[in-house]
C-alpha cells in the first residue's frame, strides 16, 4: 500500500468530529508549531518539503509564503481557496466533507507561520453542506482552545471564518477570489501588484488551495525533509487525484507522486481499469484546463518511457505531446466518447464562466463554442478546424488572467491530437450525428489481449 499523508485516517468512524480526529493524533502540528517553533521555522519546513501548490499552478508553497510582505501596522491574511470548480476536480470537497479538521488544523499552523490573525476559507457557494461541516469543525476547535485568543497559552490569536462564494468558476482565480471575498463581482485583478503585497483590503495576502494547506500538517509533524522523501524529484509528497469519467472505480485517491499513469488507471488499488470492458481513448490528466492526450501519449511519452503522475512527467513533451498535472482532475474517456462533443462542452463551460473583462476571452470563448457547436451538429466546414486553432492562439497569452489560456488549450490540443475526428465530423455530418467516431487508429496503445497490471 502506498503511503498516505492526508487520508490515512479517512476510514476511521467519526473522523469528522474533533474528538475522534484528536485521538488519531490530530492537532499535534498546532501544538508543535505554537509551542516549539517560530513562524519562520514553520515557513522553513514548508520550503524544505518542496510542497507545490495543489490548486493548479504548482507554485512552491514555501517560496510563496516567503514573498509575503510584512509592513508594520498592516494586517496580513491567509485565504484558503475552496472554490473548487475546475471540471474534473472534486478532491477538496472530499477532504472537507470527510476530514474537515485536517483543513482547520492546516489553517491554524499556516496562519501562525504567516502572522495572520484573521483567516478565511472561501468555499464555493454550492457547497452549503460543506460550509456547515466546516463551521461546526471550527466551533469544535475553538471550544478545545485551538482557535480564538491566546491559543494553547502561546499568545497567538486567530479567528477563522468560512466565506461562501456565489457560483462562479472564475472566483477560483486568486485575485477574483479576493474581489469576491470583498463583496464584489469576481473580476480578476491586473497583476502586479500580487496578493503577497496587496491582497484582501489592500493588505498582504496568501491564497492557498485546500489540499496545500492540509499538506502542511504532515510537513510540520514529520519535518519538511521527511515529506520531501516521498514522491519523485521535484514532485514531492502525495497528491489527491480526482478520477472521473469511464473508469471502473472513479473517486478520490491519494497517490505518491511518481506513480505510473498505467498503474493508476488499471490497478485494482486505484481506478481498476476502464468501465464496461471498453478501451481507453483519451485522458485529460489535470482538470479541464490542461491539454487532452490520446491514450498512447498518456501512458507513454514520445521517447517511449512510461509516463508518471508527477509535475515533470505529465508535462514531458511540452504542448506537442505532453500535458500538465494541473489540479489533479483525471478524466478518462472510453472508446465510445466523442472528442468533438466534449471539446464543445468544455468551450461552452469557459464561455459561460468568462468574467468578460478581456475581449479575446469574452469574444473568443463564445466564438469557439459556436464553431464547435456547428461541427458537432453537422454544419461545420473544413476551414472551421483551422479557424478554431487561430482563435485559440489569439486568446492565449492575451488576457488578464489564465482563464483565457485554460479555454484555449483544450481546443488546441483536441485538434492537435484528434484532427481526423474533427475532419470526419465535417465530411460525414449525417453519420456523425448517428454514431461516434470510435477509438480511431491513433489511440490504441493497449490491444485487448495485452492488457495490464491488474488483469
Amino acid at each position, binding site marked *: 500500500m502506498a503511503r498516505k499523508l492526508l487520508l490515512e485516517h479517512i476510514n476511521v468512524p467519526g473522523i469528522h468530529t474533533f474528538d475522534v480526529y484528536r485521538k488519531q493524533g490530530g492537532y499535534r502540528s498546532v501544538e508543535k508549531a505554537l509551542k516549539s517553533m517560530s513562524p519562520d521555522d514553520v515557513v522553513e519546513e514548508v520550503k524544505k518539503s518542496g510542497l507545490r501548490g495543489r490548486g493548479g499552478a504548482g507554485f512552491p508553497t514555501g517560496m510563496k509564503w516567503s514573498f509575503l510582505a510584512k509592513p508594520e501596522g498592516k494586517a496580513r491574511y491567509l485565504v484558503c481557496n475552496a472554490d473548487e470548480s475546475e471540471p474534473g476536480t472534486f478532491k477538496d470537497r472530499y477532504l472537507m466533507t470527510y476530514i474537515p479538521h485536517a483543513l482547520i488544523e492546516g489553517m491554524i499552523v499556516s496562519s501562525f507561520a504567516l502572522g495572520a490573525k484573521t483567516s478565511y476559507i472561501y468555499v464555493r457557494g454550492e457547497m452549503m453542506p460543506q460550509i456547515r461541516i466546516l463551521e461546526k469543525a471550527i466551533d469544535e476547535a475553538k471550544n478545545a482552545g485551538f482557535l480564538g485568543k491566546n491559543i494553547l497559552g502561546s499568545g497567538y490569536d486567530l479567528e477563522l471564518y468560512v466565506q461562501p462564494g456565489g457560483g462562479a468558476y472564475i472566483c477560483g482565480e486568486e485575485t477574483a477570489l479576493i474581489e469576491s471575498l470583498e463583496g464584489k463581482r469576481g473580476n480578476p485583478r491586473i497583476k502586479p501588484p500580487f496578493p503577497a503585497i496587496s491582497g484582501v483590503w489592500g493588505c498582504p495576502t496568501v491564497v492557498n488551495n485546500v489540499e496545500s494547506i492540509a499538506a502542511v500538517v504532515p510537513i510540520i509533524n514529520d519535518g519538511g525533509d521527511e515529506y520531501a522523501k516521498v514522491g519523485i524529484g521535484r514532485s514531492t509528497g502525495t497528491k489527491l487525484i480526482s478520477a472521473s469519467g469511464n473508469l471502473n472505480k*472513479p473517486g478520490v485517491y491519494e497517490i505518491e507522486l511518481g506513480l505510473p499513469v498505467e498503474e493508476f488507471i488499471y490497478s485494482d488499488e486505484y481506478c481498476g481499469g476502464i468501465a464496461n470492458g471498453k478501451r481507453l481513448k483519451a485522458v485529460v490528466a489535470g482538470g479541464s484546463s490542461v491539454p487532452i492526450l490520446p491514450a498512447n501519449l498518456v501512458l507513454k511519452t514520445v521517447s517511449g518511457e512510461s509516463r508518471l503522475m508527477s509535475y515533470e512527467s505529465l508535462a514531458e513533451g511540452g504542448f506537442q505531446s505532453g500535458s500538465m498535472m494541473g489540479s489533479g482532475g483525471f478524466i478518462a474517456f472510453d472508446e465510445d466518447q466523442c472528442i468533438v462533443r466534449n471539446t464543445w462542452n468544455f468551450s461552452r463551460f469557459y464561455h459561460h464562466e468568462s468574467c468578460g473583462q478581456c475581449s479575446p476571452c469574452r469574444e473568443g470563448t463564445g466564438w469557439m463554442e459556436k464553431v464547435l457547436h456547428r461541427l458537432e451538429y453537422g454544419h461545420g466546414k473544413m476551414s472551421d478546424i483551422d479557424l478554431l486553432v487561430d482563435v485559440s492562439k489569439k486568446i492565449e497569452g492575451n488576457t488578464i488572467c489564465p482563464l483565457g489560456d485554460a479555454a484555449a488549450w483544450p481546443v488546441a490540443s483536441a485538434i492537435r491530437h484528434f484532427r481526423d475526428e474533427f475532419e470526419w465530423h465535417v465530411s460525414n455530418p449525417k453519420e456523425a450525428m448517428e454514431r461516434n467516431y470510435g477509438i480511431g487508429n491513433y489511440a490504441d496503445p493497449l490491444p485487448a489481449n495485452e492488457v495490464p497490471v491488474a488483469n
Partner: protein
Amino acid sequence: MLRVTETEHVDFSSELLSKFGEIVKRYPEGKHKAALLPILHLVQAEYGWLSPASMERVAGYLDLKPIEVYEVATFYTMFFLRPQGKYVLEVCRTGPCCLVGAEKIMEHLENKLGVKEGEVTADGQFSWRGVECLAACGMGPVLQIGPEYTFHENLTSESVDQLLVDLKNKDLSI
C-alpha cells in the same frame, strides 16, 4: 416560504437581521461590504429569490448603493432574479458528468416535470436547470437541490423518479 412580488415592501425578520449582524462581525471595521454574498444567500434562502425590493433592503442594511448589490447579484449564478419552484433541481451538465449520462438525466427530468429548463411547474413546487461542474465528477451524474443544497449522486432515471416522489411527500432537509 415567503413570497414577495417585485413591488412589495420587504421587512426582514428580527431573526434574519440578527444573523446579518453576526456575519458583519467577521470582517474588519468598515469592510462590511464583504458580508454581501453571505447575506444575499440568507435572503434567498428565506424568500426563494432576490426581488429588487429585497436587494434594496440589503443595500440599505449594508449602507451600499443599490447598484452595488445588483451588480453582484447578477454576476453570480446562484442568485435567482426571478421566482423559482420551491425546490430548484440543478443538474451538472459539464464534460465529466456527460461522459456518464448527465444529458439523459436532464432529458428525463424535463419530461417528468413537464417544464423546460428555467421554468416552474404549475403547482409551484419545482424548477430545474443545467449548471456547470459541481465538483463531484467521480460520482456523476449529480444534482443539487436548493434552497438547502442537498446533494444527490450517481443518478439514474429511477433514482430521479424516487427523488421527486420523496420531495413531494415530505420536506427534504438535512
